[in-house]
């Protein structure tokens, strides 16, 4: 009974996320208007038959901008979390596999980066890079690298000690072979769950940074930016900011639910932990 529930939830989460990814990827086809096309006369309008979600301060279609915004936010977050996963994961595995001084150096550096509150480090990095299109992505990647390193080092350590890996070593498998064929596949579920959860968080961080004017820059449509621009016109027309906020919520929610449901399914022991 409960397993069924769990799978239903997972199916829903997958469908929900997939839908949003399809919307994002299909933006050029689905979007009813060019997200950059301005029309001063039709500015700051509420939902109408022509503009389902209304228009923004320059008369651009909010629906089109949200669809493209999904794209921007998704790409930014996938890139940054992906980069953090590769870099942090590699460091975590190396540390776990080779132990000794390498472990100590890597993990101390990771500790230092991990010591910063996420937003604070991201803001600091952007202060250095200047708010260009990819600054926020780079900042998020840097901030999440130690998280992945620490996340994967623990389970990897356990695996390295296991008889299974010892056996592989005994038959003369190379380090790379052991890491890629024996350790990594066993970490797949942890990686999948955490990536999904961190994507959810990354979407919020990217939105917060854009809100503060430090993330994606105009005229590129981005959800956080739409909210940030729309908030200046709330009393004239709240639609742009309102819908952009919902879009951020849905996207972040989808990935979080997915991570949660995946965790339930893949690793029942971890149920319900944050």
């Amino acid at each position, binding site marked *: 009974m409960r397993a069924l529930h769990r799978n239903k939830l997972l199916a829903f989460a997958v469908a929900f996320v997939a839908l949003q990814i399809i919307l994002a990827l299909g933006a050029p086809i689905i979007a009813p208007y060019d997200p950059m096309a301005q029309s001063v006369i039709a500015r700051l309008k509420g939902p109408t038959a022509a503009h389902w979600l209304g228009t923004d301060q320059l008369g651009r279609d909010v629906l089109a901008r949200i669809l493209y915004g999904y794209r921007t936010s998704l790409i930014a977050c996938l890139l940054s979390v992906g980069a953090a996963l590769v870099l942090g994961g590699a460091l975590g595995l190396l540390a776990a596999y080779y132990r000794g001084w390498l472990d100590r150096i890597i993990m101390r*550096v990771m500790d*230092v980066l991990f*010591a*910063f509150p996420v937003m604070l480090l991201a*803001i*600091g990095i952007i202060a250095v890079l200047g708010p260009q299109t990819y600054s926020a992505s780079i900042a998020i990647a840097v901030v999440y690298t130690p998280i992945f390193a620490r996340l994967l080092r623990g389970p990897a350590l356990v695996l390295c000690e296991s008889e299974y890996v010892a056996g592989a070593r005994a038959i003369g498998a190379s380090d790379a072979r052991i890491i890629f064929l024996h350790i990594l596949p066993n970490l797949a579920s942890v990686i999948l769950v955490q990536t999904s959860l961190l994507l959810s968080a990354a979407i919020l961080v990217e939105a917060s940074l854009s809100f*503060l004017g430090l993330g994606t820059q105009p005229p590129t449509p981005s959800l956080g930016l739409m909210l940030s621009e729309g908030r200046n016109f709330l009393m004239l027309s709240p639609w742009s900011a309102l819908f952009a*906020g919902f879009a951020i919520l849905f996207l972040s929610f989808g990935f*979080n639910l997915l991570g*949660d449901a995946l965790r339930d399914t893949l690793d029942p022991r971890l149920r319900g932990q944050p």
Partner: protein
Amino acid sequence: MNRALLTRLFDLLIVLFGVSIIVFLMIRMIPGDAVAIMLGANTEITAERMAELKSRVGLDRPIIEQYLIWAGSALRGDLGTSLWTGRPVATEILIHLWPTLELTFLALLFGAGLAVPVGCLMAQLRGGAADVAMRVGAIAGLTIPSFWLGIVLIVVLAQVAPGFASLGYVPFSEDPVGNLQRMLLPSFALALPILANLSRLVRSAMLDALGQDYIRTARAKGVSERRVVYKHALRNALIPFITSVGIMTGYLLGGAIVVEQVFAIPGLGRLILGAIAERNYPLIQSTILVVTAGFVLVNFIVDALYIVIDPRVRA
């Protein structure tokens, strides 16, 4: 136990040293001439003005010397002076610390306080539609952008109860009612994700605990259900709870930056954002250092508590 604590204390010092280096380098890695950037827009910048500023900030010395001077005086409690106002950075931080502390404290109180009953309720309602609904609700609470929620709250409340929506900040000591009135919305906006997170934690800890042998034993011995839940099961939830609260301080700080911006609360987040906007580098570097050090310390204390509470960690 002392050994475990000492190891962590040693780690703490290394981390703080690393943090100070990163913060220091961050400012100096800014592309171009930081001094030129510090000066304002569309004004005439003379060579004298540049040189004056450079020597005032100490950027005209060798980089190692700059670090030693900065770190040395920071250790002695001298965090430098704010570039434009000439006030000590330590004073600026102290002024801005209280609103942020109050905000985080209230948000934690809200979030953690409500998390226990909500989590217990969730555990009791496990399975079925109510469980799924609460779970979805919790995730929604976790992923709602707090700055967006804040703005929506302000605008909605201004329509519904225009008299109640007081903005800004007054110290508690000056006007306790006005203070709480102003802090209610921002701390609520900030507390929601904490509530969502902690209540799920309480729920799973409860479920775990209720399935354990000793609880069954307690039940079998005729201990009341209430006592089972609160005494035995909750204690089980305490350790992950405290750990989470430690991790949450970091989140709270990040959340506070945007929430302070929305609600016009003069806290640390505003201090840092303002310092970045006005290129006040001495202020930025010392404030980030202090805030991060505080964050590291909180986590250290959480770690220490963890060691004290859970004997297994001592090994």
